[in-house]
C-alpha cells in the first residue's frame, strides 16, 4: 500500500495544490484535508502548506492554530506522526507550540521572493533523511513574516540538541540566493521538535520538485521522499 500524506487547506492557503503534486511526484497518495474537519482520513503524515491562512489576521498562523483540523494534528504530532509546516505552515506550528519560537515581520519590512540557498544541518528528521548534513540546496523563498525569533536559552537548546534543521547559506560572496533574507536569529530557516517528526521551515520545497518550474532543480523532492521512506520502513 502506498503511504497517504494529508495536505491541509485553510481559507487563504495558497500552496496546497503544489504540495499535493509534490507528494504524488514522490510516490505517495495525496489526501486533501479541510480545516473544519477533525478527521484526518487515516493519513500517515501531514503537510501544512504556505499561504495566508485566515488572512494572517491577528498574527500569521494565530487563528488557524485553533481550527478543528489542528486539534487532531496537534494530538497526532505529539504521538509521533510526521508533520511538515512550510512557510505559513511553520507559523501555524509555532503558534500551536509544536515548535518553539515565533515568526516576526522581516527586518527590512519587504516581501522577499527569490531562490534561496540553504544548508541542511541534520538528516536526523522524518523529512530530511534523504539529505546529508552540510549539503547545500536551493529552493524558493517567499514571505514577509519570516524572521525566526526565540529567546537565547531556547536557541541554545535547539543548537545543542541538533534541532536546527536548515540555515540560510551565508557564504557565496554576495551571489544571488545567499544570505539571511529576513533577519532570522542565527540564520535559522527551519527547526524540528524533540522527536524529529515535526519540521517547520520558511522556504518552499514543494515549489522545487520539477526542473521545469521553481529553481530549475529538484532539491525539494527530498523532503517528500524522506518521509515516504520512513513510512514505508515503519
Amino acid at each position, binding site marked *: 500500500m502506498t503511504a497517504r500524506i494529508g495536505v491541509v487547506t485553510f481559507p487563504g492557503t495558497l500552496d496546497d495544490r503544489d504540495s499535493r503534486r509534490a507528494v504524488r511526484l514522490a510516490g505517495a497518495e495525496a489526501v486533501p484535508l479541510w480545516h473544519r474537519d477533525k478527521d484526518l482520513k487515516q493519513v500517515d503524515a501531514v503537510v501544512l502548506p504556505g499561504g495566508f491562512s485566515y488572512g494572517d489576521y*491577528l*498574527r500569521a498562523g*494565530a487563528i488557524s492554530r*485553533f481550527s478543528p483540523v489542528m486539534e487532531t494534528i496537534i494530538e497526532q504530532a505529539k504521538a509521533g506522526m510526521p508533520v511538515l509546516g512550510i512557510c505559513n505552515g511553520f507559523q501555524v506550528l*509555532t*503558534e500551536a507550540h509544536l515548535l*518553539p*519560537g*515565533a515568526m*516576526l*515581520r*522581516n*527586518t*527590512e*519590512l519587504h516581501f522577499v521572493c527569490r531562490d534561496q540557498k540553504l544548508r541542511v544541518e541534520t538528516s536526523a528528521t522524518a523529512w530530511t533523511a534523504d539529505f546529508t548534513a552540510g549539503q547545500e540546496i536551493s529552493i524558493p523563498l517567499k514571505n514577509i513574516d519570516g524572521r525566526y*525569533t*526565540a*529567546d537565547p536559552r531556547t536557541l541554545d537548546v535547539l543548537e545543542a540538541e541538533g534541532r536546527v534543521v536548515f540555515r540560510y547559506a551565508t557564504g557565496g560572496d554576495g551571489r544571488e540566493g545567499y544570505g539571511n533574507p529576513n*533577519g532570522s536569529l542565527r540564520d535559522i530557516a527551519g527547526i524540528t521538535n524533540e522527536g524529529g517528526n515535526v519540521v517547520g521551515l520558511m522556504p518552499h520545497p514543494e515549489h522545487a520538485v520539477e526542473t521545469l518550474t521553481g529553481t530549475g532543480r529538484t532539491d525539494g523532492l527530498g523532503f517528500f521522499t524522506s518521509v515516504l521512506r520512513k513510512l514505508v520502513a515503519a
Partner: protein
Amino acid sequence: MARVVVDVMLKPEILDPQGQAVQRALPRLGFDGISGVRQGKRFELEVEGPVDEAALARIRELSETFLANTVIEDFQVKVES
C-alpha cells in the same frame, strides 16, 4: 455594557523594525525630539454583564492564549469606565 482594553506590545528585547521605520520618518516630517517608537496592538472588548474578577480572569486567559503570543509579546488588561 463595559469596555475592557487589552494592549499588546512586543517584548522590550524584540526588535521592532516597524516602530523604527515610523521613528525614522518623524524628523523628515518636522517632528523632532522623539528618541524611540514601538508599535503595538490595542483590542477593545465590549463585555456583556458585569466586569468582575471572574470576567477579568477570562479576559486575561483569552489574552494569553490568543490575543498575544507570549513568546514575543506582553499584554495589559485595563477596564475602561
